[in-house]
């Protein structure tokens, strides 16, 4: 009998002094990082549409500007941008919001020769969530979205929940609301 993975338990409300004391985790780029600099703005809302006040946490995992991951599983890892860290983590503030500084990821090659559209895996931990929720961020109006195999699995009427849009007054800041429950509920994935 193989061992069974340990069960998940909620982060609870009081994780910040343990997990998010390092605010630099909101900045994924170092000087010289390749690619287009962007900011990613999130807001996490509960089933009543109320922003989660400081008791949710977002983690990002994304490829570099050329779609590479610094991980042995990626055949192109040796070329991954050393000035870029694909991981980010921030606590949401009193308005349920947080903003990361990163670069727009490149498309990610698939083993069959296809390509995933630029995307970011977004993980949400929060009081009330016994297990992390996983969703994906895609960039609205990116031509590659039409051919993305994950997006195509999502019912068309719910795809919009995975799209970040640029703010009209700040076109390099892309915003995504994460609705945990109810009307406009974000698509979450069983990983």
């Amino acid at each position, binding site marked *: 009998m193989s061992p*069974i993975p340990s069960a998940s338990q909620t982060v609870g409300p009081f994780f910040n002094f343990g997990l998010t*004391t390092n605010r630099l985790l909101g900045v994924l780029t170092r000087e010289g990082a390749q690619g287009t600099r962007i900011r990613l703005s999130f807001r996490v809302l509960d089933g009543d549409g109320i922003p989660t006040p400081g008791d949710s946490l977002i983690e990002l995992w994304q490829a570099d500007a050329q779609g590479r991951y610094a991980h042995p599983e990626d055949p192109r890892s040796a070329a991954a941008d050393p000035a870029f860290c694909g991981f980010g983590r921030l606590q949401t503030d009193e308005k349920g919001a947080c903003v990361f500084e990163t670069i727009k990821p490149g498309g990610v090659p698939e083993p069959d020769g296809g390509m995933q559209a630029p995307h970011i895996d977004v993980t949400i931990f929060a009081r009330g969530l016994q297990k992390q929720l996983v969703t994906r961020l895609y960039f609205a109006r990116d031509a590659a979205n039409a051919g993305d195999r994950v997006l195509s699995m999502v019912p068309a009427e719910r795809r919009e929940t995975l799209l970040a849009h640029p703010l009209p007054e700040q076109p390099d800041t892309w915003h995504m609301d994460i609705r945990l*429950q109810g009307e406009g509920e974000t698509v979450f*994935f069983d*990983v």
Partner: protein
Amino acid sequence: MNEYPRPRAGSQPPYLCEAYRSSVRRAPLQPLIQLPHTLTERTGLLYGHNPIGETDHDLTRQCSGEPLGERIIVTGRVSDEDGRPVPNTLVEVWQANSGGRYRHSRDNHPAPLDPNFLGAGRAMTDDNGTYRFVSVKPGAYPWANHHNAWRPAHIHFSLFGSAFLARLVTQMYFPNDPLLPLDPILQSIPDEGARARLVSVLDLSVTEPEWALGYRFDIVLRGRRATPFEEPVR
């Protein structure tokens, strides 16, 4: 290519758990969509995000004096679903002090803060997948989930493992705690064995005589099966 198996039924808590009140307006109600394990999910942060400091693993040595409470050593092995050790992975912990109070601005439980206890630690697993922390036993504390609700003593754990798919946040409990059967957070895990595996074991070989009690808490992360065969159904 060997795949990461999906979680076994009952081994993980559901998102919606009526008895855990905070889940009621936060759990998604739409069905989750099964995500293929693409390169994005099969990669992940390795080696943690910051170098580990000298006292990061010892929560009793992070202030000018020693914290009050029962001194404990918590150690265990991090392995994957094939029993292989998970070396060089970051383990983060956080906990209440011995009086059951977190060093957090919104914890208003009227128990004293301990000026000598911050309550957060970090360590990397060694080549055998072993981590080790020194701390004080956290106290139980009341919470607003229902009338006269008390959380059993616990330590929060966060682990990365070797890929995005292995990411785990959980809680470690202490053996023979009478609050365990009353705790909706632990009890929301359907499988009794899965609940039991979150309860640490008093281990005299970990204990340091005349100094600190030792508890063992082993953790299993998701991983690829070496053989692609399913377990036979009995």
